[in-house]
């Protein structure tokens, strides 16, 4: 393992302190917690937005704390959901009395820990509601399973819900906007390499020099198929086809696109991928309203990418266009 770390068990705490040292004008650490909150939080009269999850996905989620997006992000250990007491700290930091919406990625641990925190917060008199993001089409959706995972499409949900909350909307209105974004966004990823959790010290799984995994999750969970490595155009085709097969986006729709790097893939490659994604979507009759290319939700040091496509209507376009001033997403 070659990493710029001190004690591998202290990476999350040191990252939080480093972020506050760099961006203390916008972020503060809630004392004795792993919560990063807006400096001015709780924002009076505004619904609070809290997200979070295991660390290792930076800039998710602390990079989206700020005006127009989240009020607090709860950082768990690397790839491990934060505990209910930590999430509760995040809820309290975000609550101005107008209620708090939790944006949860669909993983068993995350959902349970955030739900327990919501129950604890309700006991303390805070009104809490939640949405669960499940945009990853690589995983079969069924009521008999854990369901689809939440991946990079979550960033669109942060943006849409954040803009709605900033406009002074009520908790139920903010939730409705978030739900609309969730039902309109689909994503899929692929990986070229494994990733190394610092405390584990070795890659989480094996993948051959000439192999790639289609549909890989952001923690290295298995995808749909392990194949020989293909060209950028072929990768784009596989991902776009699977996303559109889900039937959410139809010819004539306007969409926002996110080309997301998983940590070790250069921007050059992401732009090469985008060229084909852009062409394929247009071929299918979709019109591209905005494209975001960069690292939005990573998997530590994994090489690979994900593509997210968000179907837009007038409300979502307006919310997407309204200002956001966070480290990871500025409009």
């Amino acid at each position, binding site marked *: 393992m070659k990493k710029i770390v001190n004690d591998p068990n202290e990476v999350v705490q040191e990252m939080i302190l480093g972020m506050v040292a760099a961006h203390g004008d916008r972020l503060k650490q809630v004392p004795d917690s792993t919560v990063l909150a807006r400096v001015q939080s709780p924002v009076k009269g505004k619904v609070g937005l809290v997200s979070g999850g295991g660390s290792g996905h930076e800039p998710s989620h602390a990079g989206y704390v700020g005006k127009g997006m989240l009020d607090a992000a709860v950082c768990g250990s690397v790839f491990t959901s934060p505990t209910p007491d930590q999430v509760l700290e995040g809820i309290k930091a975000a609550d101005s009395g107008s209620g708090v919406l939790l944006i949860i990625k669909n993983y068993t*641990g995350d959902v349970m820990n955030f739900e327990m925190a919501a129950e604890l917060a309700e006991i303390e008199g805070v009104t809490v509601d939640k949405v669960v993001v499940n945009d990853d089409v690589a995983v079969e959706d069924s009521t008999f399973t854990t369901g689809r995972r939440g991946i990079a499409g979550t960033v669109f949900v942060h943006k849409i819900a954040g803009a709605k909350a900033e406009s002074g909307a009520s908790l139920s209105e903010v939730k409705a906007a978030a739900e609309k974004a969730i039902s309109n966004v689909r994503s899929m990823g692929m990986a070229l390499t494994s990733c190394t959790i610092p405390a584990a010290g070795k890659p989480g799984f094996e993948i051959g020099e000439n192999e790639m995994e289609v549909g890989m999750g952001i923690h290295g969970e298995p995808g749909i198929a392990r194949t020989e490595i293909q060209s950028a155009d072929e990768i784009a085709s596989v991902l776009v086809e699977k996303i559109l097969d889900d039937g959410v986006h139809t010819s004539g729709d306007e969409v926002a696109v996110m080309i997301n790097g998983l940590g070790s893939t250069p921007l050059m490659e992401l732009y090469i991928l985008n060229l084909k994604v852009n062409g394929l979507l247009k071929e299918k009759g979709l019109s591209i309203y905005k494209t975001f290319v960069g690292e939005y939700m990573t998997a530590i040091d994994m090489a690979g990418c994900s593509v997210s496509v968000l179907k837009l209507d007038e409300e979502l376009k307006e919310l997407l266009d309204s200002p956001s001033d966070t480290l990871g997403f500025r409009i």
Partner: protein
Amino acid sequence: MMGLTNEHLAKWLEKTNAKIQENKTFLTNLDQAIGDGDHGINMSRGFDEAVKKISSTEYKTSSDLLKDWAMTLLSKVGGASGPLYGTALLKFSMSMKDKEEVDYSSLTAGIEEGLNGLIQRGQAQEGHKTMVDVWSPVVTFLKEQPAFNPEGFKEIAKEAMEKTKDMKAIKGRAAYLKERSIGHLDPGSVSSYYLFSSLAEVIEEEGVGL
């Protein structure tokens, strides 16, 4: 003395912790095969903290002791196991409110409440290759027996744990593997087996009348 005292409950926790520490790598390896590979690490951290907390605190009631055990796991284990074990023990604690000691019927009711908490929190049912597959037969056995039967209790828990090997996971991270989850023990069922076998051993060794 009839029933489990706070001293017995503390011994139950210590014995469970000893088994988890001893099998930390085994639990982690099981979880690496079909989960996210942190069960042993998380459980050993959480149970160690729970032992520290409970051995250094005086408790008036068993409900208070169980509550601290639950809350420590909630805040120190993380992942999915933290809220699951935390919820189960919290429900057990709540069912013991205003009771002096844990007799057979309140032990049975407490573990049953724990099971209900697990089902509610994890949205899992029997056969989904989760902890429920150990807790559920254990509760059924307790309800069928007139008094605590340590040997039978351990045997039921062990059999139930071993049965998860041939199941296909429906819930938890192993569910993503579908058929590929078959042939591996469910890590949460193994740690649940440690919990229940420790309970039987404490009752036996301490000569608890139940």
